[in-house]
Structures are given as structure tokens and as C-alpha cells.
């Protein structure tokens, strides 16, 4: 026993090494990492060729780290250790005040933004559409008072200035910054980069204002809540001890719509209503709104007065589009990252007269897929 105590370092070291090795061998392997939203690597094929050219070696290393025992614990350990060292933001996420987890600024690409604004104007002009652009400001720029005192600079003001300068008159611009700033509701989720239902309602009101529609009053909705929403900034942060968010579903009982989703414009299985509540059992509950990202989403409302709307968007649109559904008999929501067909024929075929562009400002400044409009 005396010897064990004297050489405690060695015993503890060997115990850790061998226990972790053993667990790696015997523990059942998970195929899918819900935190990362990716399929984990499979055991690589062992053949003479793969071993000889070294590809087995590198793939096996990936396999080992993908399936290392207590992988999430170690990711969290690394994240909290960085916090302890004062390196807030080491994982790309600031651990901000009041439980907000906020992405660090994205690199600003003015050339890309200018080009994207060009595509947006051209498409509206070419198809003679009434057009509105809404760009959701980044959480970091709106919640600056919650960030660490010395933090990297968000490019929102530069990006919005560029929009005001370059967007042609054919597209109306809806600026949410002042509205968000003067609201005392929770606009952004704490653990996700998206905006809440309350934030989306503010966007909806602003869009109605631009489209000359009377918005449905808040009192028409009853709010149902779902606890335990852990969003994407949470997943990236590794700060597993942070509190989850609550997702609010603003339900308007008079709204009766049918939704079809696909990547290529086909309409197979109709879904009743805008909320896909199956997703409320997952960690990331945001896809409850219109089933998350799809190339093509069609919302049909029998009772609406009419009007056909095209929405070209990223995921920031999912929640606010639900509100718009009561005004249009048909909304076609297109995500250019997945929908790779030409859009003008759709506009002509469906008789669309209005287009909304709804993007988070970071995506609007960086997404190269907006070029598909041209």
C-alpha cells in the first residue's frame, strides 16, 4: 500500500489510460451526434491498400475521437476550462450575461453583400414583383450590453449602411434594429441564434406595415410553451450547464392551413398546420416552425382572401412566416441553399405578385447561394 501511495501518479495515470481504453472498446457506439447534428464516423475498412497508403490510419483516428468515451463530458471540460482561463469565446461562442450564448462576429464580406443585394433587386425587377427585404440583425450586435466588456466587433452597422446605400427602390427595406432595441420582450433565444416568437411577431408587424396589411392582433393568439430547448449556440459552446430556453407557440385557432415540404418543389404529404410538434421532443426544438430547413415549403390557406406570396429566406423566416399565413391563400417559401431550380417559372405559374426576402444579416452578407436568383 505504501508503494501505491508513493507512486500514486503512475497508478492513477495507468488506471485512467486503461479504463478509458477499455470503455472505448466495450461501450456501444452512437451513430449520430445530436449536439453536432452529424453522423459520426464508422469503423474504416481494413484492406492492404487502405493500410498501406495510410488512409486507414487517419480514418481510424477520426473514429477514435468520434467515439471516445465520455466525449461530451470532455468537450464540456474543455469549454469550462477555457472559461476558467478567462478565454470567453474560445469555442466561437461568448458566454454572455443572463445565460445568453452568443456567436462571435462572422467575418464581414462587403463584396458578397453588394452582389447579393444586386440579385435581390434584379429578381424583383425582372419579375415585376412588389418586394420587401427584412434582415434580422445579429444577436451579438443587439445584445451588446450582455457581452464581455472587451469583445470582437460586430459588422452589423456596416452591413446595414451598405444595404441602405445599395438597395434599389424596387425593394423596400424593413429595418428591425430600432424596433428590437425599444422592445422589452425577449427577442433572441439565449441558447440559439434565432429570434423568439415574440421577436418574430415584431417582424411580422413590420412586414404588414410594409405590405399595407392589417396585422392580426396579439390578443388573437394563445401561447403554448415547450421547455428544454437547447439551440445551436448551446451545442457549439460546450457549456453544458447553461439553462435551456422555452419555445413559445403562438396559436391562432382560426388559422387552418395545410403545409407541404420538399427539397425540389414536389408536394407529397400534406401536414396540418404550421407547427411540427414532433420536433418538441428533440434538444433543438426550432424546427417546430415549418419543419426546419427545406428547399421548398408551400402553405395553403383556404380561408384567406387571396394573394400569393413568395418568400426567399433562411431559417430566420420560419417562425414569422407562420404569422403571415393568415393573409395569403398560398405562400411559397424557398431556401436557395437547397432549392436548385429556376424561380421565375414558379412566379409565373403560381401567379405570384409579391416577394419577401428574409435573412439573418450574417447569412445575407455571406451566402453565395443567393446567386441562384439570377
Amino acid at each position, binding site marked *: 500500500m505504501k508503494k501505491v*501511495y*508513493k*507512486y*500514486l*501518479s*503512475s*497508478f*492513477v*495515470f*495507468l488506471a*485512467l*489510460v*486503461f479504463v*478509458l*481504453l477499455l470503455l*472505448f472498446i466495450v461501450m456501444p457506439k452512437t451513430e449520430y451526434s445530436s*449536439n*453536432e*447534428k*452529424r453522423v459520426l464516423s464508422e469503423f474504416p475498412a481494413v484492406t492492404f491498400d487502405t493500410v*498501406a497508403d*495510410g488512409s486507414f*490510419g487517419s480514418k*481510424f*483516428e*477520426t473514429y*477514435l*475521437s468520434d467515439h*471516445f468515451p465520455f*466525449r461530451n463530458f*470532455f*468537450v464540456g*471540460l*474543455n*469549454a469550462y*476550462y477555457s472559461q476558467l*482561463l*478567462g*478565454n*470567453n*469565446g*474560445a*469555442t466561437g461562442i461568448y458566454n454572455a450575461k443572463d445565460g445568453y450564448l452568443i456567436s462571435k*462576429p462572422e467575418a464581414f464580406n462587403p463584396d458578397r453583400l453588394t452582389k447579393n443585394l444586386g440579385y435581390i433587386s434584379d429578381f424583383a425587377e425582372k419579375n415585376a414583383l412588389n418586394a420587401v427585404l427584412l434582415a434580422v440583425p445579429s444577436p451579438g450586435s443587439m445584445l451588446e450590453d450582455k457581452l*464581455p466588456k*472587451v*469583445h*470582437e*466587433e460586430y459588422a452589423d452597422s456596416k452591413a446595414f449602411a451598405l444595404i441602405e446605400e445599395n438597395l434599389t427602390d424596387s425593394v423596400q427595406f424593413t429595418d428591425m434594429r430600432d424596433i428590437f432595441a425599444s422592445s422589452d420582450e425577449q427577442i433572441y433565444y439565449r441558447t440559439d441564434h*434565432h429570434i423568439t416568437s415574440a421577436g418574430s411577431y415584431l417582424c411580422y408587424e413590420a412586414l404588414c406595415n410594409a405590405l399595407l396589411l392589417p396585422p392580426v392582433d396579439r390578443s388573437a393568439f394563445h401561447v403554448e410553451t415547450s421547455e428544454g430547448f437547447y*439551440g*445551436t449556440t448551446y*451545442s*457549439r459552446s*460546450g457549456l453544458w450547464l447553461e439553462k435551456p430556453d422555452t419555445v413559445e407557440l403562438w396559436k391562432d385557432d382560426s388559422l387552418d392551413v395545410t403545409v407541404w415540404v420538399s427539397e425540389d418543389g414536389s408536394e407529397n404529404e400534406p401536414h396540418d398546420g404550421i407547427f411540427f410538434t414532433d420536433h418538441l421532443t428533440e434538444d433543438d426544438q426550432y424546427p417546430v416552425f415549418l419543419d*426546419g*430547413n427545406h428547399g421548398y415549403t408551400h402553405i395553403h390557406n383556404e380561408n384567406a382572401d387571396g394573394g400569393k406570396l413568395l418568400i426567399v429566406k*433562411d*431559417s430566420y423566416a420560419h417562425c414569422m412566416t407562420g404569422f403571415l399565413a393568415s393573409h395569403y391563400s398560398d405562400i411559397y417559401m424557398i431556401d436557395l441553399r437547397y432549392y436548385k431550380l429556376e424561380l421565375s417559372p414558379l412566379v409565373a405559374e403560381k401567379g405570384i405578385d409579391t416577394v419577401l426576402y428574409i435573412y439573418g444579416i450574417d*447569412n445575407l452578407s455571406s451566402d453565395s447561394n443567393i446567386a441562384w436568383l439570377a
Partner: protein
Amino acid sequence: MVFSSLLFIFLFFAVVLTVYYCLPKKFRNGLLFVANLVFYGYGEPIFVLLMLFSVALNYASGLLLGKFAENKKAKQIILLLNVIANLGLLGYFKYAGFAAAMLQKIPVFAGIAIPNIALPIGISFYTFQTMSYVIDVYRGDCAVQKSFIAFGTYVSLFPQLIAGPIVRYKDVDEQLVSRQESLEEFDKGVKIFLVGLAKKVLIANRMGILWDTLRVDEEAGMVAAWVGIIAYSLQIYFDFSGYSDMAIGLGHMFGFEFLKNFDYPYISKSITEFWRRWHISLGTWFREYVYIPLGGNRKGKVRQILNIFIVWALTGLWHGASWNFVFWGVYFGILLMIEKLFLLKFLKKIPAVFTHIYTLFLVVISWIFFYFETTDGIFSFMGRLFSLSDGLLSQDAAATVVANLPLLLIAFVACTPLAKKVHHKLEGKPFMPVVDAIAGVASLLLSVGALVYDSYNPFLYFRF
């Protein structure tokens, strides 16, 4: 394979260690030899053949030198052929591209093609090791190794195979055949290994990220450029010395004792002292096998200066096949000459704080030549260090610097022998095994955390 990986620690090391201590002594070298080849060949199996060739070549040279022990002429020829063959291999794999690029600049050779040759890992290290063996046998400083397995084990020994230290054959000669593994040695090895692991993963890797961030941001400002190059200086030291520590620690675990390779170089008070503390095994090698055979300081001042110049140009070139490394070596050669001629005497008279600043400044500047391979790169970075045209410190860079300040301070302290001294004072106290074990566990778990995090790639929602 590298030590600072999950694969090495939890699979290779665990398996080799288990088998090693289960085998009787006489089979242990054989096991190590095989393990070394697996270790070496894991990433690029093809180069195992090259190393085996090098082992065979030098093993045979040793045997021949033994056979012609009484024949001076024959020994000279054997040595000459051996050195040509070793340097030829190193030259072909490491310097052929560089040489061809130089030749291209001469009109007659303008048509020469630049060969595309992959650099086998560790070739600079093991070539120097095998040469130390053959030269020492030639000189009669050590006996011929008759066992191919033992010699192969020495050349390919995985702890020091890919990043040193450069172990001279005569230093491990006896250990190859009769080494005494013990729990005491093993425990020492575990501690050194874990210190090295923490230096590499917890300090060097993070300093590397800091340097990359500040280097790439060209509008970061003057202060950021200085913090950046200091971070790089720390990265190089903790990376290299951490790797050497891991090598030395692993050596102890398998019963080997290697000489220390770094001795707190950043506390030096002169460049001369710095090079006595930095990469000691390389300096020793060049002194013993180049500088002294060239005549060292025994043939007059002029010849000594020439010898220093040659040794340092070669030292630079050893680090990489590019002119910036030659320049880096010559830069130190010149500084060492100046110190030798008169400056050292002066440095001894002035307060220590100035000598520290003098040394660190010159060393930090040297890493610029080490990092940037082109004159453009060197000049533009120098411009950032010495001009205010981009301001002092941009907001983004300030955020980066502030976030890394605590680690920078830890790294500064870790450059000094402070922790070692405190540890030494407390040695033997009854609670020390617990303290050591806690520190060791922390080093291992935090390093594993960092290594696992490297593989953690969340897809953003919008990319899903």
C-alpha cells in the same frame, strides 16, 4: 503518429506498455523495434522501408568498421562512404527541391525540373543519430553493435524518433542491452510525460491559435503584432520542449535515460547562454561532429570565426530546406561571434534585467525569420512590429489579447524554473504524491478534453 493524440496515449502506448512488461527481457528490444516501425509507419507506411534501409546501411557500416579496426585507410574510406550515403539520403529527401530551385536561377540550368519529393518524418533526427554511431565507432568512442535488433531499436526508438532529442549512440549504448526498468524510474517518466503533454496541448496549441489569429489580422495594430510574435515564441518553446519532455518521460517508462534537451532557455542572459539551453542535443551534435572536427577554436581566430559561420549556416539549414532557415542560423552565428569577441564581457557588467531584455528581444526577432519563408513575409511583419500605421490595437485584436492574457502569464511563469524549485522544496513531504497525482490527472484530462474538442464539429443549424 504523435504523442499528443488520443491514438497514441490510449491505444499505442497502452498496448505497447502492457506487452513490453509481460515479455521477458530478452524479447523487449524486439518488441520495441516492431512497435517503433508501427509508430513510424502509421501515417506513411512507405517510409518504413527507407528507415529500415538506413538502419541496415549503418549497421553494416558499423560491422565493417569493426572488421577493419586495425586498418586506418579502410576505416577512412568506410566512414567517408557512409557519411556520403547518409547525407545523400537526407539531401535527396530534404534538400533536392531546394537545390533544384537554386540551380534554376542559373541560366544554364534554367530547364531543370523541381522534383516533388515528400519529406519522410523524422529523417533529420534519425540520420544524425545513425551518423553519431558510425562516427563514434570510427573514433573508437563506442563498441560496434552486433545485434541488428538492438541497433534498429536505437535508430527507430519511438520516443525520440520524430522530434528528438537527438540521442547519441554512446549515451544509450549500455541501456540498449542491459537497462533496469523500475517503478521509481517509471513514476518519474509518467510525471515528465504529463508535464510535456500539458506543455504541448494546453499551452503550445493555444499559443498557436493566438499567433494565427493575430498574424492573419493585418489591421490588428502594433501591440497585436508584438503579442503575436511573443505567442509564437512561446508556441515554439512549449511545443518543442513539451515534445522532448514526453520523449524523455516515455524513455524512463521503458527504462531509458535520455539527456535533457531544454533547460529554461528563455531565462538566458546572452545568446551564448540561450544556445546552451535550447535544443541541447542538436548543439552538442554540431559541436562534436562538425565544429570540433573543423578545428574548433584551436586554429586561430579567423578559422574559429569561419567555423562558427559554417556550423550555424548548417544548423539553420538543418531546420528546413529554405533560405530563411539559413539566414536564421547565420543570424545566430553572427550574434554568437559578436558575443565571443567582446559583448559577453560587457553583458556581464550590466544589470541582469538589461541582459534578459537584450536576449529575449533578439530571440523573439529570430523567430520571425524562422516562421516566414519569404523576404516579403519577413518585411511586412517587421513593418507591423515597428510602425503605427495600423494603430496600436484594434478592437478585435484587443478582445483576442485580453482573452489570452491569463494563459500568457501562465506561460511566462512556466518559462522559468519557479515551479520546479517549489516542487523541489516540497519533495518528500507526505502530501506530495497526492499533489503530483492531482496535477497529473488534471494535465491528462484537460489535454484529452482539448484533443476531443478538436474533433467536435457541430454543423450550424443553417448548414444542416
